[in-house]
């Protein structure tokens, strides 16, 4: 099914001009706007990361001053988390695919969708403003009383940026929830939905229930700094640990905002590269909801040594162990999906396997940290740093890049060189492991995080880590290069290059502005490869 003739009506072409993009209400164009902005922020965050790794090449703090180093790691965290990871998959692939997978013309509230991008931009600009006005040095966690009383940096401005970006995220989640509830095409029942939609729905729940709490918390820190109010101030009896409760009430679930979409992408990719119904569809679907909901009950595992009550610690620890189970269920189901599949060796497969390898390590090392007695030793060491990078970069970014490689022909109408795609996936996988695996070892040795200088016995592992970061950086640059280069080539992508099922593959690449010429009617389950092949044989 090639709609070469229809490409003139593609969403990329009409209407023309910058204004038509900046004022667009088309979810696909907004996805592209987001894609461009988060790529820019990924590069900024990556530059900060390179700075961190360069400083840690030697034990002495010789590249940056301590102050500068603290600002660099703070901004690495703030930029990567709030301006890259949280919007990464939801605002790009999610924006692009949620309406199409629902069989709808657009999201429920297209104007609010555009507003969310502008809020993101305003938040990002304020935070960048804080960078240019001298930076901020509190760590992305903004812990009080350091952030409210001790730091002399631009905390208020950076916090305001994060606050506003939070609303951008809320609006995205809100739009997805209403869209999934109200805009599904006839016949698209909940259990016929692609698993990516389930994952986006679960993610959106976390966004709307958690984000407002961190927003008000950051606002309170702002009020302490700007107005002299006392909320967490220990001098008048305020409790800094309350800040940690409120902060992690959002920021732990926020980890699921970063990983659930990646899981959704991988569910799609596993089925497509294996040309097979996903194994245990309903278990994978429900596990997304379970992770989103149970994930709200575990925040105190960030506080095992914070002077939180040990009994509260018990509750948080046991629920943490429980929330590991749905993640394990997903992983086993993905692996089982490949059993007796028809597995292609095109580039998306490399990302799928890479994701599984890294996510396994990330998830399993969470068990070390959930076990309280062991966490006392590991808390705030490089073990934690390695763990969450395996989850958020190994899981989140691999999922994001896998998704980008998979849907790139659909989004842009272009194809990228397959070999380059495979090499990039291997480089990222190898570079990533080389960067972060040594950090588990150095973490168990006791190297604390956020250290500008460190004892000499940790050096060799840090050198390995920095070397790996170089490989990782080359991998990312390679991807940006060939994807951007592909934009200058003619649009030659077929409507369904992977032979995958799903409404998005039934429409031309790139899609027309209204997605569908006629409203689609769904008559089959998702991933009905066997059924379709059967039908093809009968015809």
């Amino acid at each position, binding site marked *: 099914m090639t709609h070469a003739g229809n490409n003139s009506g593609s969403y990329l072409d009409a209407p023309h001009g910058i204004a038509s993009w900046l004022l667009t209400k088309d979810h696909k164009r907004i996805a592209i706007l987001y894609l461009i902005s988060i790529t820019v922020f990924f590069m900024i965050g990556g530059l900060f990361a390179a700075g961190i790794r360069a400083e840690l090449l030697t034990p002495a703090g010789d590249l940056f001053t301590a102050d500068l180093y603290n600002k660099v790691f703070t901004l690495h965290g703030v930029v990567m988390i709030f301006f890259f990871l949280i919007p990464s998959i939801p605002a790009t692939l999610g924006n692009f695919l949620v309406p199409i997978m629902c069989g709808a013309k657009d999201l429920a509230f297209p104007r609010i969708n555009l507003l969310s991008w502008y809020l993101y931009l305003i938040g990002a600009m304020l935070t960048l403003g804080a960078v240019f006005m001298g930076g901020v040095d509190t760590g992305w966690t903004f812990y009080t009383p350091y952030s409210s009383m001790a730091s002399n940096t631009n905390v208020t401005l950076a916090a305001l940026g994060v606050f506003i970006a939070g609303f951008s995220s809320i609006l995205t989640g809100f739009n997805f*929830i209403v869209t999934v509830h109200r805009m599904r095409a006839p016949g698209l029942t909940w259990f016929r939905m692609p698993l990516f939609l389930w994952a986006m729905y679960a993610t959106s729940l976390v966004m709307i229930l958690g984000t407002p709490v961190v927003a*008000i918390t950051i606002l*309170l820190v702002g009020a302490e700094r700007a107005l002299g109010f006392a909320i967490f101030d220990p001098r008048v009896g305020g409790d800094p640990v309350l800040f940690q409760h409120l902060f992690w009430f959002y920021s732990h679930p926020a980890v699921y905002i970063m990983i659930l979409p990646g899981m959704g992408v991988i569910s799609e990719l596993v089925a497509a590269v294996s040309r097979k119904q996903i194994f245990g569809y309903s278990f994978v679907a429900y596990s997304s909801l379970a992770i989103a909901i149970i994930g709200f009950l575990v925040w105190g595992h960030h506080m095992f040594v914070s002077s939180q009550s040990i009994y509260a610690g018990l509750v948080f620890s046991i629920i943490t162990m429980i929330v590991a189970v749905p993640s394990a269920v997903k992983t086993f189901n993905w692996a089982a999906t490949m059993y007796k599949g028809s597995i292609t060796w095109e580039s998306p497969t490399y990302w799928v396997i890479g994701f599984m390898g890294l996510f396994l390590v990330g998830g399993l090392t969470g068990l070390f940290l959930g076990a309280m007695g062991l966490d006392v030793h590991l808390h705030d060491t490089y073990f934690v740093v390695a763990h969450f990078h395996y989850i958020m970069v190994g899981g989140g970014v691999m999922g994001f890049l896998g998704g980008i490689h998979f849907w790139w022909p659909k989004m842009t109408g272009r194809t990228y060189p397959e070999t380059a795609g495979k090499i990039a996936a291997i480089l990222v996988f190898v570079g990533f492991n080389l960067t972060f695996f040594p950090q588990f070892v150095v973490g168990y040795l006791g190297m604390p995080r956020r250290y500008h200088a460190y004892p000499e016995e940790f050096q060799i592992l840090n050198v390995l880590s920095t070397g790996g970061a170089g490989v990782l950086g080359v991998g990312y640059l390679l991807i940006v290069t060939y994807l951007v280069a592909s934009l200058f080539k003619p649009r030659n992508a077929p409507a369904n290059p992977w032979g995958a099922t799903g409404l998005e593959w039934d429409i031309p690449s790139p899609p027309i502005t209204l997605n569908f010429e006629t409203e689609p009617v769904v008559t089959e389950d998702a991933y009905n490869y066997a059924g379709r092949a059967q039908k093809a044989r009968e015809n």
Partner: protein
Amino acid sequence: MGQQLEASVLGMWVFLVTEVMFFGGLFMAYILYRSLYPDAWLAGSHELNEMLGGINTVVLIFSSLTMALAVRAAQVGSWMGQVVNLILTIIFGTTFLVVKYFEYAAKFEHHLVPGPHFDPARDPAQQLYFSLYFMMTGIHALHMVVGIVLMLIILRMAWKGRFSAEYYGPVEVSGLYWHFVDIVWIFLFPLLYLIGKHH
């Protein structure tokens, strides 16, 4: 139309859930510090004017009634009903803010604003009470301002006769927001003003 209205109403409810959680952080701090410092809370609430708080509660309940009637007027297609009730809603909302202004002014006068000018003779833990008082009522008042602007827009649309029994979504959806802001105050009033008035 029904589809669109349903989506908007659902959307507003989802948004209100985020609002609940937004205020939830403040209430969390309130619960904790009140349980830790009951005496400071008692002393703090004695500085609030229960009469003004009570008047504002009644004013907001009036505004909720006129809001509900405005939505009803739109549903039955009464131009007059919409315009009159919306104007009343705006008037009540503004009254609330004026009263609030006088309350705030009194707090400034009595050195009850937390920070360097806070009355040093008072138990420092009262700074927690007044910080929360200003944050809670301040953010609530900000929501009132947004609500009033929203009502002005709706009033303009109603004036032009944009709403009918077939199309009244914007009135209904803004009404939901207005009622929510009222509900927040229904909790703030006893929690901030009425603690231990028997003393």
